[in-house]
């Protein structure tokens, strides 16, 4: 198992290399030029040309790729064209916000989605089941930004219980930290909660018809024990897959939530960099995020083995 994990970790290196070159190539074929944005409105064509030369943007594509990859190999993600700050510093400033937001959103999604999915399957066809499915369909259909604004209006503007926007680090105290994360995490979690609930229900329905479940009930085991210990464990592989994919999607989905709640996270860093064509920042963030995706996939694969010892790699 350990050897397999190490082999998979080693395999991430070429994957990351391909991602890096693809990201670099895609960015350079999209229209836009950071030099004109830096130069500002009053710049002449000559001003822009000077800035392009200074930034190395006038060099051929292969030369730019080589310089960038050389830096990456040395662990240097480069420097923001605009702010002059190292990309690693910018990512460091933002990573904690996105990590906490994603983690909280996933905890809420799993904490609510799995139990209601199990209950819906157990009470298939009942009002409870229909209610859960109605929630799942509407939760999946609601645009994140719309839900965010509704929650802000109700809980922040009208009730005044929670802040409208912003982020407080854990160092500022547990309550300020949590207060600022509740609304964004709930906003972000609803769509995944719905997805996980549907997947859990579907997967549980397949398992609840199995003979061993009937046997467990016949033995007189409590429904809770049968559902959690026997059914859910065997129904969890697709759910774990969805949670893994959901984690990756949450990082992407955080862009909208971070904008609505003005959270300084990686999503907004990426969008701002794209708008300005700040190539080193876009490349650095995408490289880091793709690394996280690869690791999440690895963790999911390891979890398969833990949940079902029959699986071998």
């Amino acid at each position, binding site marked *: 198992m350990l050897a397999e994990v190490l082999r998979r970790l080693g395999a991430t290196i070429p994957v990351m290399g391909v991602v890096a070159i693809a990201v670099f190539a895609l960015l350079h074929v999209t*229209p*836009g*030029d950071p030099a*004109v*944005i*830096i*130069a*500002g*409105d*009053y*710049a*002449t*064509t*000559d001003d*822009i040309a*000077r*800035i392009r030369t*200074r930034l190395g943007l006038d060099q051929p594509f292969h030369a730019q790729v080589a310089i960038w990859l050389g830096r990456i190999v040395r662990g240097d993600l480069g420097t*923001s064209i*605009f*702010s*002059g*700050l190292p990309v690693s510093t*910018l990512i460091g*400033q*933002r990573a904690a916000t996105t990590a906490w937001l994603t983690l909280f959103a996933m905890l809420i999604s799993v904490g609510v989605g799995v139990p209601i999915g199990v209950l819906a399957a157990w009470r298939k066809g009942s009002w409870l089941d229909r209610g859960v499915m109605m929630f799942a369909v509407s939760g999946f259909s609601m645009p994140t930004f719309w839900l965010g*604004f509704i929650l*802000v*209006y109700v809980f*922040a*503007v009208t009730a*005044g219980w929670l*802040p*409208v*926007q*912003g982020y407080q680090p854990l160092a500022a105290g547990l309550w300020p930290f949590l207060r600022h994360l509740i609304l964004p995490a709930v906003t972000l979690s609803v769509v995944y909660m719905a997805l996980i609930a549907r997947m859990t229900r579907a997967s549980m329905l397949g398992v609840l018809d199995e003979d061993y479940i009937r046997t467990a009930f016949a033995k007189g085991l409590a429904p809770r024990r049968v559902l959690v210990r026997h059914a859910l464990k065997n129904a969890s592989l697709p759910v774990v897959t969805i949670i893994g994919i959901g984690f990756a999607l949450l990082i992407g989905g955080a862009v909208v939530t971070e*904008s*609505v*709640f*003005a959270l*300084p996270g990686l999503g*907004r*860093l990426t*969008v*701002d960099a794209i*708008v*300005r*064509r*700040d190539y080193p920042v876009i490349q650095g963030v995408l490289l880091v995020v793709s690394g996280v995706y690869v690791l999440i996939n690895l963790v999911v694969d390891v979890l398969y083995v833990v949940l079902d010892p029959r699986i071998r790699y």
Partner: protein
Amino acid sequence: MTQLDRRRFLAGATATAAAALAAPRAHAQKSGGTLRFVAQADLKILDPVWTTAYITRNHAYLIYDTLFGTDDKLQVRPQMVDKHSVSKDGMKYTFTLRNGLKWHDGQPVVAEDCVESLKRWMKKDRFGRLLAAHTAKIAPADRRTFTLELGERFGPVLEALGKPSSNVPFMMPARLAATSADEQVKEIVGSGPFRFSKDEWQPGNQVVYVRNPDYVPRNEAASGSAGGKKVFLDKVIWRYMPDHATAAAALAAGEVDWWEIPPLDFIPKIEQDSTLATFLPDPLGTQGWLRPNHLHPPFNNKKARQALVHMMNQETYLQAAIGVAKYYRPCHSVFACQGPYRSTAGAEGLARQNLERARQLVKESGYDGRPVTVVHVTDIALLNGAALVTRELLGSIGFNVDLKAMDWSTNLAVRAKKDPPDKGGWNIVHTWWMAADVMHPAVHFGVSGAGPGAWFGWPEIPQLEKLITDWVRASDQARRKQIADEVQKIALDEVAYVPWGEYVLPTAFRRSVGGILKFIAPLFWNVSIA
């Protein structure tokens, strides 16, 4: 119609301003506190000489000081300068700095710092380059005094040094001003009323400024960037909120104190809230532009360009772009209508739409039916509206139009291209300029006819370049006005660009904020929070 519109605009704007003007000053100014401000954009670049971005200019007004400031009546007044004199022949200026000026690193401000700062600024700024071309020598005379000797007559020396908008001649220590004008300075050290808190700067989120305890303000009332920069606040935090609804909710909930530029559709809601107020900080406003590309057909032909003037109906553009009548006004002058060079010279065609005449000019131009590429910026509401009006009007006078939709950033790259429209270039772009940047010929990019050295669109009109040189060499105001009129006549006849009117944008703040000054940029001295 025009007079009525202007009256209606002024009545509305005055009412708005009058209601709000009292609000910032309604309570006694007290010292201390933190002001949370939602800035118009994210501050990414810190060097105000390296870029002309307005957000960087606004940031620099907190950090850096200027030799001269511009008051709210557009008069240039000394700021860092204690006294100045001009030789009898008008060719030598002597400036003496105020006592007690210090950089944020504790070093005293000396004349050499100012000389180096001016030299760097003169390499980047249009007005600065004009001044440099007329300057024989600029050098320190002693620790607090420096001289500027002209090689050729240059009238508006003080106007250049007190230029309020980008690039503003901000003063930096000589060691930083020695940085190439094409490189960013590596340290942010000014002598202004606030210090930049670099450790708290998070691009994309917040910028933090703290009061400079060593700053010695002039003993005068504050007015624009002139007068005494008395600081009441301990700290100013700029927040960047890309979502307008979030900024509106944060202002209403008291999580921020001042929102620099709320979109106009948020203003009615803000004005209904008794804890909030609005204010017109820059009544001079902003001018909209339609700029043809002079390099390629059909607008390399003067008649085709003149058709653009005759098709213009500013009211239609302003309605589509701004929408709320009290915030816009038609202005048939290439120079700001609230400024000293406002003119009607040569503007007859611009003032009265004549589609028939425009159609005739298109025919006379020999237009061959090739598509006219209009850059359509979709993510900025006012440019989106302007481009759609242009498409309709161009179609109505006989042009085939290719509306090229793109975001603002892509537009910046596209408009810098000199390629033909069918190879990624363009025929028409829309943009806007603050009134301070179209105030007179030396700052106005739209009246430059420098060809490849002109602003995008690259009109080559040597008469304009000559007249601009004449303008800076003129020493009396009457002569300057006469030359400015001539500049306007030629600019409109050659159609360097077509102005589509002026508009103003209110700012919004909580009533706990007092002392906001009228200026083209948000200023944080004189401001207090209750």
